[in-house]
């Protein structure tokens, strides 16, 4: 297939997935902000979210204060922010439109409809009145888009490039989500454990789990109280957890093997290596070396794999 087509498909999926994960991340922060807590702690939470998305300097250039309403506006409806939900949905649709002939009619109409409705949801109403409802909608449009992809697209290269985009983006986003929450917890709650903090701790962890739809999964897998190291294990190392880093990298490797041939094993090599780290990694080891360091390295590697895919397949040579 055309390199340019593959590029559009890859980014269409990435942007769709990014919109979903941004919604998930905002949702968990919003839910947390509803708990009784001091203003500085709440602010810390929103600030952490911006910094993990590498958007703090840009945000500060536009808004004075870090407040819930401002951050939500910035991350949902601000079209000058390329990572806002509205921008992601626009980019997903523009990429889809550029290759609409390569999509099934159902898939194109799903993408187009998402964009048409998004403008209505985000601009016409004040979404701040009920942000959870908007986040729910974004998630479901993403589910729908994925379902229509799997249900209607021919199992060929085009689909593989879309899947590559989805899983590369998802792995990246899950890593950021875990990182931001660990950082928040380390700074605020760890160390001086009194009873109240431990109680909050539960809410923190359960919120993270819920944000990746893993609360019930955690219970099912561990049948135990919620412990931070297990949350990390579930979201990083479990291959059966659909949003874990391990599961995402497995999909990346298997889709790469469909689109790549022997000449271009560089990308496959890098992805395969990262997959083995996740396959054979142990959570104790990771916690010993430091979770933040591990996740930072992971994000770097995912970034390199993304660039490598781009150079090998997507950019016209």
């Amino acid at each position, binding site marked *: 297939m055309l390199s*340019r087509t593959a590029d559009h498909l890859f980014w269409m999926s990435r942007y769709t997935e990014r919109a979903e994960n941004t919604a998930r991340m905002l949702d968990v922060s919003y839910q947390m902000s509803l708990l009784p807590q001091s203003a500085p702690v709440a602010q810390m939470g929103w600030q952490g979210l911006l910094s993990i998305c590498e958007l703090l300097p840009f945000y500060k250039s536009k808004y004075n204060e870090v407040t819930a309403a401002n951050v939500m506006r910035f991350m949902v409806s601000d079209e000058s922010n390329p990572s806002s939900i509205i921008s992601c949905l626009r980019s997903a649709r523009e990429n889809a439109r550029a290759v609409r002939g390569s999509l099934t009619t159902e898939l194109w109409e799903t993408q187009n409809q998402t964009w048409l409705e998004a403008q209505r949801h985000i601009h016409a109403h004040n979404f701040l009145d009920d942000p959870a409802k908007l986040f729910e909608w974004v998630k479901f449009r993403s589910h729908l888009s994925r379902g229509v992809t799997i249900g209607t697209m021919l199992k060929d290269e085009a689909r593989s490039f879309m899947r590559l985009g989805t899983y590369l983006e998802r792995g990246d986003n899950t890593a950021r989500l875990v990182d931001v929450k660990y950082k928040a917890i380390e700074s605020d709650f760890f160390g001086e454990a009194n009873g109240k903090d431990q109680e909050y701790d539960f809410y923190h962890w359960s919120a993270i789990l819920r944000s990746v739809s893993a609360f019930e999964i955690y219970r099912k897998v561990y049948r135990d109280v919620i412990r931070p190291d297990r949350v990390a294990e579930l979201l990083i190392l479990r291959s059966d957890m659909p949003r874990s880093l391990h599961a995402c990298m497995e999909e990346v490797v298997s889709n790469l093997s469909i689109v790549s041939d022997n000449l271009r094993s560089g990308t496959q090599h890098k992805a395969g290596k990262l997959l083995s780290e996740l396959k054979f990694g142990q959570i104790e080891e990771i916690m010993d070396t430091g979770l933040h360091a591990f996740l930072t390295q992971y994000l770097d590697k995912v970034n390199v794999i993304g660039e490598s895919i781009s150079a090998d397949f997507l950019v016209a040579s």
Partner: protein
Amino acid sequence: MHRFDEMHLEANAGLRAHYQNYADWLSRQQAESMQAHRIEAEMIFRKVGITFAVYGEKDEDGSGTERLIPFDLIPRIIPAHEWHSLQRGLIQRVTALNKFLHDVYHDQEILKAGVIPTEQVTNNSQFRPEMMGVNVPSDIYSHISGIDIVRAPNAQGEGEYYVLEDNLRVPSGVSYMLEDRKMMMRLFPELFRSYSVAPVAHYPDLLLETLRNASPQDVEQPTVVVLTPGMFNSAYFEHAFLAQQMGLELVEGQDLFVKDAYVYMRTTRGPKRIDVIYRRVDDDFLDPSVFLANSTLGCSGLMEAYKAGHVAVCNAIGTGVADDKSIYPFVPKMIEFYLGEKPILNNVPTYTCRNADDLKYTLANLPDLVVKQVHGAGGYGMLVGPASTQAEIAAFREALLANPSNYVAQPTLSLSTCPTYVESGVAPRHIDLRPFVLSGKTVQMVPGGLTRVALKEGSLVVNSSQGGGTKDTWVLESDRS
């Protein structure tokens, strides 16, 4: 002046027979239900993304405007016998036009015979000297021809078909023909039970067959691509639609490159050779090394590969010389010259303003005439005398006098009307018809074409860029309905 309506007979004398069933059905429909259907149609078109970009218009946020072409619920119905004679006329005309193109780029017999003044062809800006002596497969130049047909009453008040214009470069609109039919079948399936309407959905198959047959290489599976200027082009939807319907890659100039006089596209598995390019890009932009040097829509070296016979370009380069409005008056003579036949379809009488007599007549009759630019398209830069103010006519006179050879004039035809939904209800609006004629091993077409309708009361300009809409076009399978 006579009027001709497709549905109603003159002077309230009733309905034309082929509209009787439809009119009965329409009279049984509730206004609200038809209104609901209109809204449904618009919603579906928007969801499907059947839009066109309007040049020069921007949304509030600065991105290009995507507009729907208004779709009218009342079909334009053509009886079988009328279509048969139209079809014969179209085949004859397109065959002659292709022979003319081959001739002007080879021996120029028609010029030597004095049928058409030589300088009118060779000095024409659409004449491509680069094409002299270039052989194209099967001598076919215009593989896809859009012939604009209008109907107007003759002296007896009978509707007569005229060819208004030939479009042999990159005619568009066929996707609306297909989508309009799909929409009608979705909204009003019951109508298709009472009328046997000739199907049109196989157009992409005929087009694909035509394109594959154009391949210069003797290969079993020629690689055919659709070349688009990109998603900001007004007809992008159609390019993507046709590529998808035919299962072809939709490429842009940046996807192509030429090596050793062969054209390749860049794919995820390396370069792939291309045999046929269905281009929706104008000649001028096709190859920056030969035509416009700053074009990024084409591919450098394409002309070289084309001349070497390594790739086919559909339509061929240089077809514009045959659909130019200054050549149009000669088409009936071409038919006689190449085929030895009498033209089946009428031309509209045309005054070529480069001729002193014609110019004089035109200047004297501006309020009654339609004056068009020779190379104009899309309804831009034309004067419709009867619909213009004195100031507009005066301004146009200046432009005409400054460069007479840039203009032709025609009597203002009273285009036929068809009942159409407008704000105040159903009212007659002027229409035209663009059948799409495919030339390959044979000349073929699907029955009908795209009917465009001028939605403004009294307007004769049907172009979508000027507020025109479309209607589904029904060719009946037999004259009994």
